[in-house]
């Protein structure tokens, strides 16, 4: 199962090293890690998307994270009301003739063209993972030349409504 876990950690040197080292040596399967500052300069926030086979595997990830002295708080927020976002930049091969078509395609995703070259355009999209992946699937037929994704960063919602289940499809 794929789970989203957040951790607040002391913003000390080497803390990223401690966490990634832990994942590697325990053979935890991570899809993405993001890290960044918070409102408190001494504390960073990390978001992990992990793949675990069962509940015991998930417990281990959380417990091992908690065991780190520099980890202040760990939460599995997968089933909570959260906003989760990632950013992707996708460079797509296009002739000048297809640009209009691509613009139409990405409009419902509120994605933007951030760079235009002679044979390619670069698109930026922000959203949760299903949305980003839906757009990538749509762009794939044009030929994706390069892609960079930030990984997910996530937050609990202020109001506790249930997890948003929005699905994106070609006919948005």
């Amino acid at each position, binding site marked *: 199962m794929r789970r989203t876990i957040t951790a607040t*950690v*002391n913003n000390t*040197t*080497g803390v990223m*090293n*401690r966490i990634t*080292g*832990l994942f590697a*040596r325990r053979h935890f399967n991570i899809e993405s890690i993001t890290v960044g500052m918070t409102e408190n300069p001494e504390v960073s926030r990390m978001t992990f998307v992990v793949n675990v086979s069962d509940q*015991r595997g998930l*417990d*281990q990830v959380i*417990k*091992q994270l*908690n*065991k*780190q*002295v*520099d*980890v*202040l708080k760990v939460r599995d927020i997968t089933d909570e009301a959260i906003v989760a976002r990632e950013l992707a930049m996708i460079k797509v091969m296009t002739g000048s003739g297809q640009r209009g078509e691509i613009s139409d395609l990405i409009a419902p995703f509120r994605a933007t063209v951030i760079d235009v070259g002679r044979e390619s355009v670069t698109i930026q999209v922000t959203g949760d993972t299903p949305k980003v992946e839906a757009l990538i699937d749509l762009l794939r037929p044009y030929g994706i030349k390069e892609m960079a994704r930030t990984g997910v960063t996530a937050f609990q919602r202020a109001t506790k409504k249930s997890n948003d289940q929005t699905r994106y499809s070609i006919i948005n």
Partner: protein
Amino acid sequence: MNTRVREVKGRELKDENQEMSGSSMLIQALARENVDTIFGYPGGAILPTYDEIYRTGIRHILSRHEQGAIHAAEGYARVSGKPGVCVVTSGPGATNVVTGIADAMIDSLPLVVVTGQVATSVIGTDAFQEADILGITMPITKHNFQARTVEDLPRIIREAFHIATTGRPGPVVIDLPKDVSIASGMFHYDDEPNLPGYQPTYTPNKLQIRKLAEAVTKAKRPVILSGAGILHAGASPELLEFVEQQQIPVASTLLGLGGFPGTHELALGMAGMHGTYAANMALHEADLLINIGARFDDRVTGNLEHFAPQATVAHIDVDPAEIGKIIETHIPVVGDAKEALRLLNEVNPQPGESVRWRMKVDEWQQEFPLWYKEGSEYIKPQKLTELVYEKTNGEAIITTDVGQHQMWAAQYYKFDHPNAWVTSGGLGTMGFGFPAAIGAQFAEPDRQVVAILGDAGFQMTMQELSILQELNLPVKVLLVNNASLGMVRQWQQLFYEERYSNSLFPIQPDFVKMAEAYDIKGYKITDENEVAGVLEEAFNYNGPVVIDCRVHEEENVYPMIAPGQGHHQMEGVKP
């Protein structure tokens, strides 16, 4: 007992809130942590600290290799329950203690290891004797620090001791750059470390205790697996009370030996690969397994598919990450073993109806005791261990190295008291046993310390004979000399069709001469009839002794669970 071991020169305690150098802060902090002995080895980057050691006269034991220093610190910690302190220089000094740090980590021994480091101005430039010890030891320490400014140093030292000794104990490294140890700053030594990310749980959840109590009452075939957590928590009295009240048989892990009296009628001895038949069968047939402070190591469990198939599993551990890591656990109890057992004893559950079970367990013990064949022309290593037990009245502190002799010691020396057994369990570190005995002797200057070693393991750290010579330290070194890497040879015999690749030593050094080169009494025994006499002489002599005891070279450790097998598939359970 030798007076030089006791000698602790007066340490001057300086006042707080005054300016002093980083190295002075370190020694002042050690004094405040009641550290009476440092094990270490000097070198360039740590010279300012050594200067401070010289000036204050704090006791420092100079090993002849840093590995010796750290294993001595481990032995000291295991026996005293206090943190072992090890100080070494940067680069090679620091990398030489890596094995010991990993050993302490997996066996949960509290250590504070101070490594010198090159000056902060050149860190990261591949300077002379620079090694990234923070990076190297990150996965094998409970936590590690690099002091980047002298102002941080007192806090770091305080936190290091706190982390090493609380919760599940473990090693903590402090990397101390040379310029930081020279710089001067204000020394405060706050009592309460502020570590919001580190809050060990000691008091177990009452609900879980109640659940466990109910399970005890319901159980018809209960068994306890007693681990080193009992020793770390000092929970032996509570365990004994619980067991006697409930009449539950106790199997022990290798590291847990001594947590419950080995001669008690409910003691089943060691469980696992070379454990007793009764201990392993009890685990296999149990309907309630109460693990207290053990971590379900693979050498204990055998093949997990066959492990305790009918049991409700309860697990008491101060480290929540151990619970459910290996075995699905039905009754998790996070907390200190002493506190958990105290609460359980308070609840005092109605014992389950387990008379028939105890009869069954008894039958296993009677029917399948540990065995070996006596009366051959060779000295039997098992017999040797039994004689050591007899001649020390079971009251010695025993350290071992790793291999066959270790298993025989675990099988035949019945520890009745905690903290008398020092062995490398999790990492299985050859070279551990001899220096660990030195540390143990410093922890308990008045007790008989016997290092039972293989001839190969001894040769990994035997340079520490210098310490015995220098301090006339009365450690007794007993070589169970089978002229081979016995345990390796056994596996090659059993699983590699007797292809003895690099495991036989037909040519050996003269260990007696070697002892004598260090001005240490040496004995060589080849005849079983001599053993008792020599042991007696050695144990009555107030000084170091090396005994080279030539044992049967082809003796194997039995019984045994072969790799991939379960507890019920033991081999060699009878002659």
